[in-house]
């Protein structure tokens, strides 16, 4: 009986959490997409600053990680393909798994580590020092002021980063292809391009936009629900990272299922 009520409680809490995320995401989307046409201009300057932080500054580390991931994928694929004498399919394997899944996912995880945590820490600190309250008493919506620029930066930069990550992954794979599988650089790249359908790339990019929304919503929600005291900021930052990774995987699953069942073969 107690177990049942505990399960029930967890489910209710989970649903309430998703509800708050949707509410926050919805309000941010309203301020990004609707409010500018009703005389509440976007904070482009702040959004650009955020885009620099979220996107451009993530490039070096993201490039390195996805290059390695591409190389690892090639090695792992070759291990299997070699047995069937199909090692020339390495390019296909890397290109498809990068663009459909690993490109968006690895990008999301890097961005969670760099920016999702930073969102929670920034907003959490502002909460503790009453800066959020100050915004409200000045009749400035904290969502409009703080969340919307991050939201805008994320939904633009995450797909861009994902495209970059895909390219770096394929480049990583090509290193193996050229060194071990008798490809030339040009032939490897051509094989990758031939292997890809437009759909592979677009589904990956659609997912990355959804990841961007999820990461912003979780990071900002955790920041805004920070309690009193400095240690609470640390707690919400940790929670933002863990919850973001979890929610991104859930969103990934939902969209992958959707794409799987809506694509005719």
């Amino acid at each position: 009986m107690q177990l049942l009520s505990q399960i029930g409680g967890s489910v209710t809490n989970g649903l309430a959490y998703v509800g708050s995320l949707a509410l926050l995401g919805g309000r941010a989307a309203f301020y990004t997409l609707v409010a500018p046409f009703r005389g509440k201009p976007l904070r482009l300057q702040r959004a650009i600053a955020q885009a620099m932080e979220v996107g451009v500054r993530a490039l070096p580390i993201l490039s390195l990680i996805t290059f390695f991931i591409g190389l690892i994928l090639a090695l792992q694929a070759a291990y299997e393909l070699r047995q069937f004498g199909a090692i020339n399919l390495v390019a296909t394997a890397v290109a498809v798994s990068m663009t459909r899944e690993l490109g968006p996912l690895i990008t999301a995880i890097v961005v969670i580590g760099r920016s999702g945590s930073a969102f929670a820490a920034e907003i959490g600190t502002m909460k503790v020092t009453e800066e959020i309250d100050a915004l409200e008493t000045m009749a400035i919506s904290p969502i409009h002021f703080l969340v919307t620029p991050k939201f805008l930066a994320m939904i633009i930069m995450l797909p861009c980063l994902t495209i970059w990550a895909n390219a770096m992954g394929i480049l990583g794979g090509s290193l193996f292809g050229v060194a071990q599988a008798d490809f030339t650089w040009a032939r490897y790249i051509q094989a990758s391009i031939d292997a890809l359908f437009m759909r592979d790339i677009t589904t990956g990019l659609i997912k990355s936009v959804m990841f961007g929304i999820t990461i912003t919503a979780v990071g900002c929600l955790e920041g805004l629900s920070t309690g009193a005291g400095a240690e609470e900021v640390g707690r919400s930052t940790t929670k933002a990272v863990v919850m973001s990774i979890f929610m991104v995987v859930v969103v990934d699953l939902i969209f992958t299922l959707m794409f799987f069942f809506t694509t005719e073969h």
Partner: protein
Amino acid sequence: MDSSMDTERADSQDSEVMLSLRDLRVSYGEREILHGISFDVMRGETMVILGGSGSGKSTLLRTLVGLEKPSSGQIWIKGKDITAISQAELDEIRRKIGMSFQGGALFGSMTVGENVALPLREHTKLEESTIEIMLRLKLEQVGLAGFEYYMPAQLSGGMKKRAAVARALAMDPEILFFDEPSAGLDPIIAAGIDQLIQELKKAFRMTIIVVTHELASAFLIADRMVLIDKGNVVAIGTVEQLRSSTQPRVRQFLDRVAEPEVARELDYLQMLTEEPRRSAS
């Protein structure tokens, strides 16, 4: 509450009521923090809300500016009950009030100038050059002329408070709220802030509401005071009326008579566990 005190006002005030509380109750979860607070603040008057730690005075202030929702009761500001209006209407009223927070609550990522200019940039369509002039004026008013390019982290505690006051003044508010203006400041700096509050009152005939537990400061700046204890109004009146009050709780507070903070460990534990959010001092 002593009703004879409530009806008497300081002579110099206009008779217009600026802010009026009617049976205000605020709860955090199951725990009621304020048990029916009622009093009026007149235009141009400085009202000091006095109370010990945990008396509910900070909660009262947060409720007055709409940061906490009361469980029942009314708050009338400029003829509107802010507990029963839409967010848009509340924002409209908030443009006419200024609030100076305990720690300043300046935005750490912006310069002092950007902090002070923020409400102007958000809510007005003034030219950038006009905003620059206004921001210099506001900084001058609080004695911080020339500090617009400093970051808040580079300011001392007292200067942060002054910058926060400048930001609160940006929209030329009709009511100014102060949360513990002298908290964390040495006596000399604190006296400077008291002086600033008096100057603002004199220069702009602004309605000022100050929450504090500093007796010296309270007696200096107040026209009237209201003493809050355990979520109730214990006494309200002019400085002289409170000084000459014979009510035991008032005397105890003003004469600084010690009292054991918490009777039993269990009560204290209960108090801690029942309070899910910021300390309601």
